[in-house]
């Protein structure tokens, strides 16, 4: 038995519903646009402290007679790195995703999605994408003036290939960001209370993404791990690509590893979801 006797069902692309989820959530998010404007402007405040901090570091090195660059990064590069980090994190960070998913699972809110003919994963991706759309809609107005003010820090003019690789790396950044959150969020299928764990994981992700310190200036012994880790794609790689720090013949390799991680995370997240759902359906909801 299939189809609806009332003939109420019509054939449309199976993806159309996800498009509507995206547009509905975008509408809802737009209600909070003032909040976004506020966030988009004031998120740059910590950058001021960072600039002063690194200025002091470079001055001290100069006074001590040390080379004027740290692992190939001049003072200007360093500031540019932190500025570009705002763009990269604007794609890779999907705030609230882990905790929302774990809450849906823990409080049984998942039920209302499970009974509908749609995928919860697809729903979450669209929901978070909408957040990014609204964020960037606002950021298009607030970012340019700030970047214009900082223009003398941007010493490298990216090539066409670097621009293309940069945009590709942003897509990878978003994919890894959401997939990772989805995976960690689904841990709630097995563990009742994971907020402390979420906090630790988020700190680790934050650090390993290069948000705090550029990964290439961390100890050399860590480099093999850091350069291959998936989290670098959430911040470090987009920045250094745009700064021209990745040789052109390495661009594809870097993006390739990133895509590989997207594949691994996608597979792992779907597997965890299926296993978790089996458990959820078995023990209660």
């Amino acid at each position, binding site marked *: 038995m299939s189809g609806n006797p*009332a003939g109420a069902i019509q054939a449309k692309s199976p993806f159309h519903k996800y498009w509507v989820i995206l547009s509905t959530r975008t509408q809802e998010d737009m209600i909070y646009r003032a909040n976004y404007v506020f966030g988009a402007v004031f998120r740059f405040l910590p950058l001021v402290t960072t600039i002063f901090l690194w200025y002091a570091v470079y001055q001290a090195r100069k006074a001590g007679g040390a080379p004027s660059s740290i692992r190939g990064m001049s003072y200007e590069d360093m500031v540019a790195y932190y500025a570009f980090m705002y763009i990269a994190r604007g794609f890779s960070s999907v705030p609230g995703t882990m905790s929302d998913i774990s809450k849906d699972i823990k409080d049984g809110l998942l039920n209302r999605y499970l009974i509908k003919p749609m995928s919860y994963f697809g729903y979450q991706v669209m929901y978070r994408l909408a957040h990014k759309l609204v964020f960037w809609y606002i950021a298009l107005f607030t970012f340019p003036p700030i970047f214009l003010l900082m223009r003398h820090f941007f010493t490298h003019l990216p090539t066409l290939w670097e621009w293309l690789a940069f945009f590709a790396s942003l897509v990878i950044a978003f994919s890894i960001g959401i997939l990772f959150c989805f995976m960690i969020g689904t841990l709630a299928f097995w563990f009742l209370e994971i907020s402390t764990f979420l906090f630790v994981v988020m700190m680790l992700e934050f650090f390993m993404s290069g948000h705090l310190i550029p990964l290439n200036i961390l100890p050399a012994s860590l480099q093999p791990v850091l350069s291959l880790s998936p989290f670098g794609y959430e911040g470090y790689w987009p920045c250094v690509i745009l700064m021209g720090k990745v040789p052109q013949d390495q661009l594809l390799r870097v993006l390739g590893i990133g895509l590989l991680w997207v594949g691994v995370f996608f597979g792992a997240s779907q597997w965890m979801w299926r296993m978790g759902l089996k458990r959820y359906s078995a*023990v209660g909801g």
Partner: protein
Amino acid sequence: MPIIEVENLSKIYRTQKRLPGLGGAVMGLFSREFTEVRAVDGVSFQIEEGELVGFLGPNGAGKTTTLKMLSGILYPTAGTARVMGFIPSERKNDYRRQFALVMGQKNQLWWDLPAQESLFLNKEIYGVSDGDYRQVLDEMTELLQVKRLLGIMVRELSLGERMKFELIASLLHRPRVLFLDEPTIGLDVVAQRNIREFIKDYNRRTKTTILLTSHYMNDIQALCERVVVINHGQKVFDGRLDDVVEKFSQTKLITITFKNGGVSPEQLSAFGKVLENTKVKAVLEVPREGVKGASNGILSRFDVDDINIEEVPIEEVIEKVFAGSEEAKV
């Protein structure tokens, strides 16, 4: 062929047993003991297309667990469930497009948007055509008198109004089977009546099969001819609501209004158990078979202004049913 077939359905939860207090919590980190809870224990019933069946039982009886198994949210531990020929736990899209589950306490409407946006989203999720959508929406908003509220943010609606939109959202795709879990919970009397009348009318017009749980006997009495009663996960009754009264209530109530002052309890107790006795009025509980004789006796012996014979209120009977199965358990 029945549209819902439930055969020996069981759900056993395994939960961690905790010792009381802080010490227990600390011990729980090292050794865990599990206990089994039989939420649903070998329940069987069948429902024909178009029926509106009440699903009754005290809190924790297993009603919601059963509905969850029928909706595919939970896998049964044992037994089978089939709805419209589908096995719910397979969660096929073809199945999910043909049923709806409405839970009174949980909502699917988007809080910060007008209800119409959530309704439109549901239309797309279920793949309802534009024409059908408009038709169903017009009809339902008219019937439930919420047309003018379509553009208002959900957060600004009253609980009753939200419940109405909740129902509309669940009916847009014209489900053939509808599971209603406490649809009137928390609503005021007027809103309860509105929802109740709507459900009744909807079932009559569309022949949608409805399985309804409610703690309000008014809902059940107004809507359901047939009830399935479960307690401790087991079915204790399945049949016409009227038969519940026949089967579980061996008594009737006789209310007497006196013309010139009351009668002593001793005189009254000859006819039955005295439940209430004032100067104006007395209420007696009398065995079914003795009602005729008792009323004749009362009319001939006392100065009676009015006499009224009633069934025991359904709430009390159902309470008895629950209590009866409780005793059977012990």
